[in-house]
């Protein structure tokens, strides 16, 4: 081995030490950077290390678990948020369906007590109107919640497409940058960050085969970004007023809504098609049962003008929309004398037999499921509460799971300042030693050259 080679070794060592300190410094400076993967210095004998040859500390298995956990947590958070309005819609209080029904049923008893009293009749009509308004407002609240979920689905798909385009562009850049075999760590970090952001919205699977074999699929099937960086965007279509997600596959538009079963978009779809739809259907059924039965009994009674056959509420034509369309019938609206408290025109005005029959409907089990209106509403309220509660529990569970996986990922890819400081000291020592080698080699070279004198 020549003395010149010794100088070369010292030089490589110094460069290695310098590069190692740089890697540690980079890690330290990114200690709080979201999505940053710790770089590790991979030494190769006799070649040493240069900054560009550092590699990210990434465990693909953990990254896959993180994407799944991220999608799941975002799904439950979105579902929980979308269902929060149920608590307000079905809570007791002024203007609620429950309070309005209580007052309406109580005023039926007042009518039975004072069948000829126009003030009592006015009050009953007012309470009938309040029941109709409460049902309308509850239906509108549910429609609003569904509308909001649809809006978030549309917005979520836009955000996904925007990120898919960036992922495609980055994949192309990474493929080019890594032709020389050097890892494009920063670009990969950015792409991983974008993939995580996509997984917050829809379920995605990353497939990586070889250094340039990155592809992204929707829930493991439909391609979103191919290995060559080609992007297949999602689009939103309208179906029965709801946002549906489609994707062009082999030139044909495919409805992929059912595949979007997690992520925030999936959570909104789940809330929309699950509890919100169920609540709306049941509310409609309750409004339908309520109005048709009260109409039926009321039609059998006689008003103060001796006429029978009038409805209290506009008779619903179908269950769907019954709550939204519930209104006081024009037969009696503004005409309290036309409320039918009696059963016989000959026994007016204090005949309260029909008012008693109407009053008895408060406990009659005519609602769907063999329940009274009160029981049906209580059951609906409990169901709404359970939907919100379950979503909250699922959110807590999945958020906990995400935290666990995130902690696992952090343990693999995160930065520990003490470790980096130790690494920095180590490379600093190596740098100092290498400079010593150069110094010794220089001395030896000088002494060798001085032999001639």
């Amino acid at each position, binding site marked *: 081995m020549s003395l010149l080679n010794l100088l070369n070794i010292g030089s490589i060592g110094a460069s290695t030490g310098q590069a190692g300190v740089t890697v540690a410094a980079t890690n330290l400076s990114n200690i709080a950077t979201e999505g940053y993967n710790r770089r590790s210095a991979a030494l190769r004998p006799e070649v040493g290390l240069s900054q560009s040859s550092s590699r990210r500390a990434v465990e693909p298995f953990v990254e896959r678990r993180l994407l799944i956990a991220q999608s799941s947590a975002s799904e439950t958070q979105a579902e929980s948020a979308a269902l929060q309005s149920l608590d307000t819609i079905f809570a007791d209080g002024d203007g609620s369906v429950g309070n309005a029904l209580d007052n309406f049923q109580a005023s039926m008893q007042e009518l039975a007590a004072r069948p000829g009293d126009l003030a009592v009749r006015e009050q009953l009509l007012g309470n009938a109107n309040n029941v109709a308004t409460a049902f309308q407002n509850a239906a509108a609240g549910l429609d609003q919640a569904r509308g909001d979920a649809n809006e978030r689905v549309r917005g979520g798909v836009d955000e996904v497409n925007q990120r898919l385009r960036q992922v495609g562009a980055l994949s192309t850049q990474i493929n080019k940058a890594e032709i020389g075999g050097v890892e494009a760590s920063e670009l990969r970090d950015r792409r991983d960050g974008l993939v995580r952001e996509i997984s917050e919205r829809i379920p995605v699977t990353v497939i990586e085969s070889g250094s340039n074999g990155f592809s992204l699929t929707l829930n493991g099937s439909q391609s979103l970004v191919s290995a060559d960086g080609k992007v297949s965007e999602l689009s939103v279509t309208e179906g029965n007023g709801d946002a549906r997600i489609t994707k062009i596959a082999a030139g044909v538009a495919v409805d992929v809504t059912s595949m979007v079963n997690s992520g925030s978009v999936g959570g909104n779809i789940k809330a929309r098609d699950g509890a919100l739809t169920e609540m709306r259907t049941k509310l409609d059924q309750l409004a339908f049962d309520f109005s048709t039965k009260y109409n039926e009994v009321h039609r059998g009674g006689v008003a103060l003008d001796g006429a029978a056959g009038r409805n209290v509420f506009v008779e619903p034509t179908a269950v769907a929309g019954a709550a939204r369309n519930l209104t006081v019938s024009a037969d009696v609206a503004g005409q309290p004398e036309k409320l039918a408290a009696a059963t016989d025109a000959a026994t007016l005005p204090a005949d*309260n037999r029909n008012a008693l029959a109407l009053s008895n409907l408060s406990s009659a089990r005519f609602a769907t499921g063999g329940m009274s209106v009160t029981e049906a509403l209580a059951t609906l309220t409990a169901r709404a509460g359970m939907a919100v509660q379950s979503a909250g529990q699922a959110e807590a569970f999945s958020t906990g799971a995400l935290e666990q996986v995130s*902690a*696992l990922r952090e343990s693999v890819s995160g930065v520990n300042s003490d470790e980096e400081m130790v690494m920095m000291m180590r490379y600093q020592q190596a740098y100092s030693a290498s400079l010593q080698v150069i110094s010794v080699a220089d001395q030896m070279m000088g002494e060798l050259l001085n032999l001639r004198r």
Partner: protein
Amino acid sequence: MRITDSSAYAALNKRLSAARVDVADAMERASSGVKVAKPSDDPVAYAAARRENNKRALADAGVRATELATTHLTGADEALASATDTIAHAKELALQGASASLGADQRKDLAQQVRQLRDQMISLGNTQVAGSFVFGGFKDETPPFDPLGQFVGDSNVKEVSAYPGLKASASLPGEQAFGTSAGNNVFSTLDQLATALENNDQAGARSHIDGLDNDEKRMLAARSRLGSMMNGVSTAQSVADRYSYSAKNEAARLTEADQVSAVTDLLKAKSALDAALAVAQQMPTGGLLKSRS
């Protein structure tokens, strides 16, 4: 497992956030006194409270209805008590009229008094309480007895609902107390007595004492029925009152917080937050970074 700076801070952040949420929840419960404020807090309890609130609203309406019915029945009872006194007074006048010591003019004076009693009796038959003619049956907006003493009301008995399915009779048709329109009534008895006295008919005056006895018996029987009705309405009202009371208590039990446990929970939550904050202050800062500087 490696513990990185980020994961240590993330864990601390999580604990602090959770502790603050717990404190906020506990403060809300302790300050509002409500433990179930919305359906998701406890769906089963909230739904049960909804049923209890409905039960209470219906029971309260029933209590109001029975109070009105009691007012009507009490008014009717007072009217029948007065009517019974009036009959007793008429009987005294009939006995005086049947006395041989009275002359024609004196009997005419008695006849005038009996006519006044008859008018008074008609007024009692047309007693109005809280806007209703209490002896009119379902026709309670017009006087049930015309000036001739004819019953023009109807024979229906009103029912009051104290709670859906819990009803009680709450009116007495006038003819059951004052007699039928077919002539067998207290008004015609008084009429006939007055006529006999006007005609100075001593025997006739005596003969109507039996009629007044019959009218009195009918009146007393009617009062007895009225008394039963008042008992029935009172019982129904008590049931409605109990429903309302128990519904109120049950709803409170289901939704309201126990103050002692609410305050204890708040203290626990505050202790947990204090502990988390103390841990935050113990977080190592700098580590080797600091020691090198």
